[in-house]
């Protein structure tokens, strides 16, 4: 079995903000991390490899410094690590990204046919959840999103069965390989890298592939292959600025004043009394 895991390097999003005074990005202390959903996908791939045999290849598209997430992937059990890095890849939206990754997966498959592609449900910086379905569609892979459990793989019959989250519950579904899984965080708790693996990950060479190496059209990658553009950025606008009362001056009084303010709108009070009929 050949498992390919797509990993994105993302800024630790909780830290990125806009300074409301100057309308500029505040970056102080923002670190780059591997997208947590992708690390979950890697963990599952490594577990499947341990169960069914085979190899795990981790792929990331990004600037040269994205190699750190691949070294992390190696320390967590990936056998091969490939960085897709080329100036031409810069500025890619999800359409161009899924094209570039799918070219890389085709290239990987020439040496060793790919059975299962795993990626995180979404990246925590963009939250789009589009790249997985994009890759599956381009490569004609069976697509399973929101996967919470891989129940079994039948390498002989070339089938996989998963449990996936759907509206109102879960779905157990099976389909032919090769397939693509986009995974939820609860699928697998990532292991910690052992010290020897950490050391060896630092010594491992990272393969770097450019557009030519994956036979990608320069018109379809990066900014040229991206239909969507950013026009502007802004701080989210939040409305209202209501009054507040301190409970330390008396709980009953604070609550009663707050409710007076809330029910100053008589229509609202009437709706509340009627149980929102």
């Amino acid at each position: 079995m050949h498992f390919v895991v797509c990993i994105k390097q993302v800024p630790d999003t909780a830290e990125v903000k806009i300074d409301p005074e100057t309308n500029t990005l505040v970056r102080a202390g923002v670190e780059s991390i591997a997208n947590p959903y992708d690390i979950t996908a890697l963990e599952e791939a490594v577990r499947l490899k341990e169960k069914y045999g085979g190899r795990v290849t981790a792929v990331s598209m990004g600037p040269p410094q994205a190699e750190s997430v691949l070294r992390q992937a190696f320390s967590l059990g990936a056998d091969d690590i490939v960085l897709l890095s080329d100036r031409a890849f810069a500025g890619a939206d999800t359409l161009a990204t899924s094209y570039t990754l799918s070219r890389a997966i085709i290239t990987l498959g020439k040496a060793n046919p790919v059975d299962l592609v795993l990626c995180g449900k979404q990246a925590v910086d963009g939250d789009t959840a589009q790249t997985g379905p994009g890759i599956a569609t381009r490569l004609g892979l069976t697509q399973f999103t929101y996967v919470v459990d891989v129940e079994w793989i039948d390498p002989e019959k070339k089938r996989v069965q998963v449990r996936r989250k759907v509206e109102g519950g879960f779905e157990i579904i099976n389909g032919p390989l090769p397939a693509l899984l986009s995974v939820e965080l609860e699928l697998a708790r990532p292991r910690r890298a052992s010290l020897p693996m950490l050391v060896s990950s630092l010594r491992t060479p990272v393969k770097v592939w450019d557009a030519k190496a994956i036979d990608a059209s320069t018109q379809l990658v990066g900014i040229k292959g991206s239909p969507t553009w950013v026009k502007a950025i802004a701080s989210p606008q939040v409305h209202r600025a209501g009054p507040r009362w301190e409970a330390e001056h008396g709980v009953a009084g604070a609550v009663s004043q707050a409710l007076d303010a809330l029910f100053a709108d008589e229509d609202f009070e009437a709706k509340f009394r009627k149980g929102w009929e």
Partner: protein
Amino acid sequence: MAKNSRGIEVAEIVSDKCIACQICIGECPVGAIELSPDGVALIDPEVCVGCGKCFESCPVNAVKFEKKKRKKIPKEERVEPGKEAPGHQGVGVFIEMVDGRGAPVSWELVGKAKELAGQLDTKVMGLLLGGSVGVAADEAIAYGCDEVHLMENPFLSRYLSASYGKALADLCVKLRPAILLIGATPLGRDLAGVVATRLETGLTADCTGLFIEKETGLLLMTRPTFGGNIMATIFCQRQRPQMSSVHPKVFKMPDKDPARKGVVTRHELEAPAVELPEIIQFIPSGDTAGADIVRYPALVVAGRGACDQASMPLLEELAQLVGGVVACSRPVVQAGLMPYERQVGQTGKTVAPNLYIGIGVSGAVQHLVAIQGAEKIVAINSDPNAPIFRVADAGIVGNYQEIVPELIAQLRKIKSNANGER
């Protein structure tokens, strides 16, 4: 302006404005720009030839460049020529079926589509797929569709990415809508990525605002990014349809007008030629209320400050009294106290209840953005500086364990007092 050693006026990046989109890196003809380890573009002044391409392509004006002679190329000409897309018209809305009915988010989008179509002087097309679509086509017209295009086939009775993806993409190729809106439900987000890739067009996920740009007629799509801390406005210059997915409850439910007239057209399904997966079983979630938090008229939302199993009965009691359920913010899910289905926020659910009561919710931006559709917001927090107070209609600063019982007592009194006297 800075000059390099060859006397060329070079461009500079204003690092705190740079959003690391890397557009300039792709545009630079001489490879002078790189992304620094801090995630900011950096220009090597010795390599820069002073062409100004980075200045013109930067979406956030983070490039300083003042070569006077160069005239700024208008945005329209700046984009690499893509496929020209003439003859695309109308606003399409994918109508999702849930239990034999149209999903509420689909009608919310039809309402928005009507507004956009009005500005573009065009029509709204409902695109309806299913095994049995029942009254959904009539409903679509009542909510604002001018045309409904449907594929009704037992083959579509259950959602599969491959069959729905092909069916919807085929409909778009045939009907050529300029805009396509899809509800960002789990199903819709799965489907949107497939359709956009099949049509090779741009897709902007989880939009919170949709506008038509007057001068160009382009769809401007606003969406949260960087975990909801920043809003980005995105557009899709050439490819069609301009695709956008939108969470439930972001837009208002339109009024239904059963007298509205529209045209329903049936289309034949052409099944995909690939082997499809087989759904073995559907297991309903044990937490039925959790799956439905968006439908409740009132929510009592537990945050980091009320992340305590022992307090849950108290919150449940309050929720029951106000006719709602208990939901939570991200830290409570991360602590394993409540399932993800109950999470309110940009990465959870966008909600618009009549009454939102936040208990120990500090109010991270990604949470505030997702509750702004609420009619009234009450905040209880021990920290007087919690951002949640900035969006609340009424706030109480203090220990929720003292405040909530008092709140329950007073609300009960109000509710039981038939004369409306307090």
